[in-house]
């Protein structure tokens, strides 16, 4: 109580003096209503946000009620609106009062109208729906004769008119440019500026009207018009060069003080307009040499005139410096003047001026870095400035003066800043700057790596960090060729260390994992656990980054395939089941990896990435399958049509083939001594195989080229000899039953034989035409052929195969459904197996795109040479067919759908591009592909019906792929026949399958596939004997996976056939 009394007493003298002495009646005149005061008092006395909310909400409810009363007076309305503006500023929703604000603007007069407009401007925005209600009012007020109404309406129009309504208002505003009061003219010009920002197209039409206003006698109008023109000039300085002179004149007038003295600020005439003019002149000067010459004396005068120690003078000075540095070819004297001015800024004790000084210096060294030398010390001081803003500007300056000599020092400084700063965006920006500098100017790679490493460590929590990692990876990728072994080792050791540290942030981990994959050939086997265990640890982290995880899998696969890590470690570590992998495709990856590890334990010598010396061309791995199948009661393989032929027919067709063979062999044997030896061996072999009881026992040949012959035997000869043998022994009963309708068939056979001979005769002609240069080639290449051909170690292959067999037996022993699944996943695994290899062959393209299939697709694109493409196409198609199986099977089980369909699509794409390239080969026997295509379809439909899935997508690609697969053998000989003698044989052989379908018109699909697949491995030797770059690829690809694939495919086909027969 006493407090209040005291306060009242204390205020008494003041009250007396004010009222008695008449003073000013400010307090009475401006006294806000009591309600508002109480409200403000309550709000400001409250500490907690909650209480404030309570009070404000109560107040707003009250205001809403009060405003909606019909008999509310205008001053009250103004008062309430002011309160609501305050509420709005505090962040409360006051949308209920919008209509009242609009009403007040519509109905109020004078000061009340102004408050109405103001509240509309503060509460609404130009695209608000209620603005439509206001357009009419604005129009009315613009037409009014009252200056004040015009004035408020223009102010409102500048903010509240939306783009659609601009045409309604624009004519009225343009009219106001000619208003007698400069107040209105200036407002009108400002309003136009705003409108033209929103609707730039309108500006073009009224440019001349606006330019007239440039010669207004009132500086405020000129200033407003300058805003509009600078919009235009920023857009296209070249177009507005004619205006340059008038700008120079205006600036001249300004500094000559021809405008009224009231416009001076701290003795500087029209400083804001000067700034504007200097900016515009700088823009124009940057495109026109003549204009910049013209303005140079004026600018130097501006420099000289602004020597007063006033902020505003410095502001003008700074703009002048920027204008001079941005113009074309500034005069050296002028630049020297600028340099001294910059020195004034830099030496000033004011932080603001130093800040601008650094900025000015940055602009100046853009013209010539020499000017930086005189300010070295100041710059260094500014670097240690405690003000962050100045520091940042100085860093920009440093970046400007960076060259190869000082880049190291500068980067160290920049890094320090990154380290110190807490602003994440600044950090990121600086990190990118460092990356640019380092990439451009780095003296050596090691330093680059070190710097980028520390940068990454510093900014690892930034959102755009991946860009930065990508830059580093790109850099290493590009220059990896030049890295010597010690450097690679250095990289490996460095990032191995990173991998083992628990605190390494994820982006760095990604880089580390990638680099380890890249440099894995330097990895010593004793280090393998050091590599694998942190990676597996990574996988078991709960906060696992999925990208990192996929990358880890890819790299681990590469490591396993390259034998860079010991597989024991891998299997031990990977077999722990507590890996928290959520995504289905990651689980799939893990499974694949496990299978791969399992496989690589079994096939230790088959590691790709090394030159493969031994290949199994005898397809001996099929023996056991075939044997098993036959033992278990399956019918031995025979083409479908041939099954219905009698023995005589088969003999006839045998004769046909024999003749074909003999026609080719003379050509062959005449070519080279060696070739003939081989051929004779081959023919012996074929004879042997004819006589052998069981196909599986017919693989006894240690000769180098025997594989070639044998392969053909697999498809071509087996269809002939097999008929013979099988017809006699195994399906003898069948053939005897067929013999009854032999007479009808004999005619057919003759026709067929005739047709065949026709084909062969043309074949022969072609062969003889080529004879001459075959001989030449063979002389050169014959011996090489022999030495380069890989040796076939059959026993080992058999051992391997048996091992593998045992695995599949195990699988078979599982319940049928499960075994199918595991077999499929196995298939898919081996399909995926190729991808790490491909990636290694193609220098890890797309190491960061995590779907393996992309590797392959990429590889198809990259493989330029035809051979590579052919091979890849074949590879992919065979893989696809396997994947298809896997996919369908998986679908049946309802597991992850998207992942695999995606993968398959990519395969399909890859296959398609392969098909493209094979199509371009002139296919000698054009019917072949179509036949096989058909059979492919046929096979597919089996497949399809088995899966019982109506997947339309599947049928198309598979057709394409089968055709790609099929056209392969026919295309290949053409391609390779140019190079060496063995090819001639091939071309002969290759014609065989083409003949066969004709012979056995629409034979079993499996035949076609057999021929396609079998000729594939046989194509390898000649390719590997050529010393072209494709060799690597071949060796990488052709060994295990392709054999694996074909085996899988063949096995699949066998089971298919079995079903069919049944």
């Amino acid at each position: 109580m006493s407090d209040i009394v005291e306060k009242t007493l204390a205020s008494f003298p003041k009250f007396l003096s004010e009222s008695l002495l008449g003073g000013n009646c400010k307090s009475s005149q401006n006294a806000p209503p009591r309600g508002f005061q109480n409200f403000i008092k309550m709000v400001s006395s409250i500490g907690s946000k909650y209480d404030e909310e309570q009070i404000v909400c109560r107040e707003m409810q009250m205001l809403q009620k009060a405003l909606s009363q019909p008999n509310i007076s205008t001053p009250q309305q103004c008062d309430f609106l002011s309160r609501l503006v305050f509420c709005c500023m505090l962040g409360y929703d006051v949308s209920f009062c919008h209509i009242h604000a609009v009403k007040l603007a519509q109905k109020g007069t004078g000061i009340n109208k102004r408050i109405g407009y103001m509240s509309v401007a503060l509460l609404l925005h130009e695209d608000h729906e209620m603005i439509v209600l206001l357009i009419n009012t604005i129009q009315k007020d613009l037409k009014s004769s009252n200056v004040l109404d015009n004035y408020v309406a223009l102010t409102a129009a500048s903010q509240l008119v939306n783009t659609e309504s601009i045409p309604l208002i624009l004519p009225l505003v343009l009219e106001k440019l000619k208003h007698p009061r400069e107040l209105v003219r200036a407002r009108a010009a400002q309003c136009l500026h705003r409108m033209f920002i929103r609707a730039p197209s309108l500006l073009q039409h009224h440019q001349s009207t606006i330019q007239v206003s440039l010669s207004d006698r009132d500086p405020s109008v000129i200033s407003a018009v300058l805003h509009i023109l600078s919009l235009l000039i920023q857009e296209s300085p070249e177009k507005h060069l004619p205006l340059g002179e008038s700008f120079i004149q205006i600036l001249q007038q300004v500094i000559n003080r021809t405008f009224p003295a009231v416009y001076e600020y701290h003795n500087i005439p029209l400083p804001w307009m000067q700034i504007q003019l200097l900016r515009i002149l700088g823009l124009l000067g940057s495109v026109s040499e003549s204009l910049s010459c013209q303005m140079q004396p004026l600018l130097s005068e501006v420099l000289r005139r602004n020597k007063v120690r006033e902020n505003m003078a410095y502001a003008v000075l700074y703009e002048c410096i920027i204008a001079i540095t941005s113009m074309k070819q500034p005069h050296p004297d002028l630049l020297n003047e600028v340099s001294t001015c910059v020195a004034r800024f830099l030496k000033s004790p004011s932080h603001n001026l130093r800040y601008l000084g650094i900025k000015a210096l940055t602009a100046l060294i853009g013209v010539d870095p020499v000017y930086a030398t005189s300010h070295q010390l100041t710059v260094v001081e500014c670097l240690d400035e405690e003000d962050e803003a100045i520091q940042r500007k100085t860093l920009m300056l440093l970046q400007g003066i960076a060259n190869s000599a000082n880049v190291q020092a500068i980067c160290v400084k920049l890094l320090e800043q990154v380290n110190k700063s807490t602003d994440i965006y600044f950090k990121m920006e600086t990190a990118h700057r460092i990356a640019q500098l380092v990439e451009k100017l780095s003296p050596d790679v090691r330093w680059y790596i070190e710097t980028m490493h520390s940068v990454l460590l510093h900014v690892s929590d930034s959102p755009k960090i991946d860009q930065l990692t990508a830059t580093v990876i790109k850099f290493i990728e590009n220059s990896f060729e030049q890295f010597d072994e010690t450097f690679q080792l250095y990289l490996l050791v460095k990032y191995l260390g990173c991998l083992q540290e628990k605190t390494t942030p994820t982006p760095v981990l990604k880089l580390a994992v990638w680099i380890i994959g890249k440099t894995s050939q330097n990895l010593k086997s004793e280090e393998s656990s050091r590599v694998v265990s942190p990676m597996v640890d990574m996988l078991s982290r709960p906060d696992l980054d999925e990208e990192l995880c996929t990358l880890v899998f890819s790299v681990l696969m590469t490591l396993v395939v390259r034998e860079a890590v010991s597989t024991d470690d891998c299997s031990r570590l990977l077999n722990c089941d507590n890996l928290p992998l959520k995504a289905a495709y990651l689980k799939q990856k893990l499974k694949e990896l496990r299978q791969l590890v399992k496989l690589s334990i079994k096939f230790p010598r088959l590691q790709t990435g090394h030159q493969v010396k031994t290949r199994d061309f005898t397809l001996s791995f099929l023996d056991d399958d075939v044997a098993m199948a036959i033992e278990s009661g399956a019918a031995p393989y025979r083409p479908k049509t041939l099954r219905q032929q009698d023995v005589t027919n088969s003999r006839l067709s045998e004769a046909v083939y024999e003749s074909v063979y003999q026609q080719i062999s003379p050509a062959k044997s005449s070519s080279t001594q060696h070739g003939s030896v081989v051929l004779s061996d081959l023919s012996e072999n074929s004879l042997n195989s004819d006589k052998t009881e069981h196909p599986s026992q017919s693989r006894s040949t240690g000769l180098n080229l025997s594989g070639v012959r044998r392969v053909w035997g697999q498809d071509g000869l087996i269809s002939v000899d097999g008929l013979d043998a099988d017809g006699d022994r195994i399906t003898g009963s069948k053939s005897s039953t067929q013999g009854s309708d032999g007479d009808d068939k004999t005619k057919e056979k003759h026709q067929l034989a005739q047709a065949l001979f026709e084909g062969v005769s043309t074949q022969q002609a072609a062969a003889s035409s080529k004879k001459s240069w075959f001989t030449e080639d063979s002389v050169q290449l014959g011996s090489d052929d022999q030495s380069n051909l890989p040796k076939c170690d059959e026993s080992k292959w058999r051992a391997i195969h048996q091992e593998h067999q045992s695995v599949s037996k195990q699988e078979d022993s599982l319940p049928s459904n499960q075994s199918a699944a595991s077999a499929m996943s196995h298939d898919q695994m081996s399909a995926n197996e190729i991808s790490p290899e491909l990636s290694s062959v193609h220098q890890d393209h797309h190491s960061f795109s995590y779907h393996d299939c992309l590797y392959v697709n990429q590889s198809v694109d990259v493989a330029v040479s035809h051979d590579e493409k052919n091979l890849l196409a074949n590879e992919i198609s065979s893989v696809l067919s396997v994947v298809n199986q896997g996919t369908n099977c998986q679908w049946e089980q309802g597991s992850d759908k998207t992942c695999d369909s995606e993968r398959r699509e990519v395969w399909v794409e890859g296959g398609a591009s392969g098909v493209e390239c094979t199509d371009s080969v002139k296919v000698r026997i054009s019917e072949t592909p179509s036949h096989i295509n058909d059979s492919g379809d046929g096979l597919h439909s089996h497949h399809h019906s088995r899966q019982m899935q109506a997947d339309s997508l599947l049928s198309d690609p598979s057709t394409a792929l089968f055709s790609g697969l099929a056209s392969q053998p026919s295309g290949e000989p053409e391609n390779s026949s140019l190079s060496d003698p063995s090819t001639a044989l091939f071309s002969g052989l290759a014609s065989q399958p083409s003949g066969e379908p004709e012979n056995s018109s629409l034979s079993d699909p499996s035949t076609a596939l057999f021929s396609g697949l079998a000729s594939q491995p046989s194509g390898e030797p000649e390719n590997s004997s050529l010393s072209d770059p494709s060799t690597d690829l071949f060796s990488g690809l052709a060994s295990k996976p392709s054999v694996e694939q074909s085996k899988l495919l063949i096995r699949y086909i066998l089971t298919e056939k079995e079903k069919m027969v049944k």
Partner: protein
Amino acid sequence: MIKAILVFNNHGKPRMSRFYQYYPEDIQQQIVRETFHLVSKRDENVCNFLEGGTLIGGADYKLIYRHYATLYFVFCVDSSESELGILDLIQVFVETLDKCFENVCELDLIFHVDKVHYILAELVMGGMVLETNMTEILTRIEEQNKLEKQEAGIAAAPARAVSAMKEMNIPQKIKDIKLPDLPSIGNLKF
């Protein structure tokens, strides 16, 4: 271009805000908070320019501010504005306010929001700096006040007289009571 003009006190309570570019209300609040956060931790002896802050314009965004006793005046501008020019514009603004309200205080900005915005509209329109002639602005405000008086005199003279007598000293009272929080800012360094 000036994107926004913000005035808040030492506790970050907004006292006046004007956006020349539309932002939704919640973003506006965020901008005020972020700006206060950035500005309030600056020392007195550093420059009045500040880069950073992400809400308004990203990299092309600067804060130019002045600190008067309890109030921060912050102009958020893009790179096309002259830093020192804006700094002096703030000065002009505060001087004009001071002359208009005689020892302007925080509450004047709230109670006379219309006049404050009117003055501001004389300095900045649509985000562009207008010719700034303080004397002329003051003359115009005088004109306005006269007009207001005339209108008030005709329309509500008796009522106003009564309320004037009643509430004569209230603003002064508020100023006295809240002295530690709301000191006058008029006679401070310029």
